[in-house]
């Protein structure tokens, strides 16, 4: 079983006229299969930079990322990514989008269709397999994005605020779906959000990040996603005293940290 080890990761963005911005400073994080890490923080705290480094879209200034003991260089199919804005290919149908990674690998059509349909069933989109991307709703597009990332059977799922643009009801529904997916697949999940409630509901490990320089300021181990697996009632989980108590605790920490809340 592969694990993800991030040690002493720093990113210093080169700016104009010699200045630079320290977006990430000395981040340590380790994940094993079945871990659901959620990065929570305001804009500019470096959470997307951290995800981009794990995905291999950018190289860190220092530190290293090991996946299954191997250093990460560049993007690869063992790290599936779900984006904030869907980033699906509009010239392909829902099914063709999901089977994209398998087609790139040269898998035969019948075989890849079967795998893609299986992933669409996991996100309850099998009825929309032949729909064009522009004819399905935003929530369906994000679920198609999740199915697409799952298709290559990655060791880790990287999700960059995938539910940020959705309405509250759709968002809650897809949160339930993601927790169930995580439990079924036992993959590592790394999920970015700026919703405290969403972070607490999904995470087994919640990292609260603060800006300038971006770093991990606090860590929590919320028990709520496992509670949801048992009861399948997200409203009951989210309205329990323990949930509300931890939510207030996290909110208080975020508001207390300097520079964390600049636009509210």
């Amino acid at each position, binding site marked *: 079983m592969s694990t993800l080890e991030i040690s002493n990761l720093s990113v210093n963005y080169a700016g104009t006229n010699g200045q630079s911005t320290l977006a990430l400073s000395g981040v340590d994080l380790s994940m094993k299969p079945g871990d659901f890490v959620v990065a929570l923080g305001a804009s500019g705290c470096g959470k997307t930079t951290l995800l981009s480094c794990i995905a291999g879209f950018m190289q860190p200034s220092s530190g290293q990322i090991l996946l299954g003991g191997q250093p990460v260089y560049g993007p690869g199919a063992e790290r599936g990514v779900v984006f904030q804005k869907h980033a699906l290919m509009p010239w392909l149908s829902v099914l063709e989008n999901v089977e994209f990674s398998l087609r*790139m690998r040269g898998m035969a059509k019948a075989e890849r269709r079967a795998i893609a349909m299986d992933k669409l069933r996991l996100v309850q989109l099998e009825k929309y397999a032949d729909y064009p991307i522009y004819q399905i709703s935003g929530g369906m597009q994000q679920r198609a994005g999740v199915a697409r990332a799952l298709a290559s059977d990655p060791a880790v799922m990287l999700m960059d605020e995938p539910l940020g643009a959705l309405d509250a009801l759709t968002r809650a529904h897809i949160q339930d779906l993601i927790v169930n997916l995580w439990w079924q697949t036992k993959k590592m999940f790394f999920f970015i959000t700026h919703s405290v409630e969403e972070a607490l509901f999904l995470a087994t490990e919640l990292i609260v990040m603060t800006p300038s320089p971006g770093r991990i300021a606090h860590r929590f181990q919320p028990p709520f996603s496992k509670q949801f697996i048992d009861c399948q009632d997200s409203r009951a989980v989210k309205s329990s005293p323990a949930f509300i108590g931890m939510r207030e605790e996290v909110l208080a920490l975020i508001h207390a940290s300097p520079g964390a809340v600049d636009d509210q």
Partner: protein
Amino acid sequence: MTSDPRGSAPPTVRAVKGYSLPGEGSSVFISVFTVVLLLALWWLATHLGWIRDLFLPTPEKIFTAFVSAMRGDIQGGKALPEHFMWSMIRVFSAFFLAVLTAVPVGVAMGVSRVMRGIFDPPIEFYRPLPPLAYLPLIVIWFGIDETAKIILIYLACFAPLAMAARAGVKSVTIEQINAAYSMGASKWQVIWHVIVPAALPEILTGMRIAIGFGWTTLVAAEMVAATEGLGQMVLNASNFLRTDIVIMGIIVIGVVAYLFDLLMRRIEQWLVPWKGRV
């Protein structure tokens, strides 16, 4: 008002339109009216003797000229279909050669700094030149036969196509490229399976512009040096003051150009139904 299958509104409730953009709605009826009005004005002007026959013959005479041209009963002795066929062969062979070469060059310019550096100066230099300005040079280099004409039309089509493909590359989003890399695609696969499809709407727009350029250049080239073709037919008729054939030729050239554009729009709807919807 008949009942709407989706809503059970009683017929007393007036149906209203939702929001609409300025200029929305079909303009076909109004366009037909404009054309009919122009034809009527033409008919009146010629039949009431406002304009001399030499300057503007009657619509009936243009039709007669069309019928006799179809039979080959005009100066030069070649029938209209033959002129038409030669023009089509020239413009389409040059256009397809341009599509085959300009699209890869444009995409290469979009994705590669080196390619952009190499191709940008020559294309940007010759692109604004009127093709008739370098036609004499092409005749000196390649002679007066078909090669020269096809090269001239090819050059006229090449620049807008290459520019469109290059600009089209920019329509791909960085997320789409990153997503493809994260799904294990190689650099070539990203170009072929992500960048080229994303650029296709702009490439098709470029094809629409290019075929228009090609057509205008063709007629101009045929007026300079040809023994057949629509442009040559019009020029030859003007030498004999056959205004009826000149106008008939102009109408044929205009209608063909319009049909080209309709065809390209149809191809666009068929190939990129997602254009503007994501």
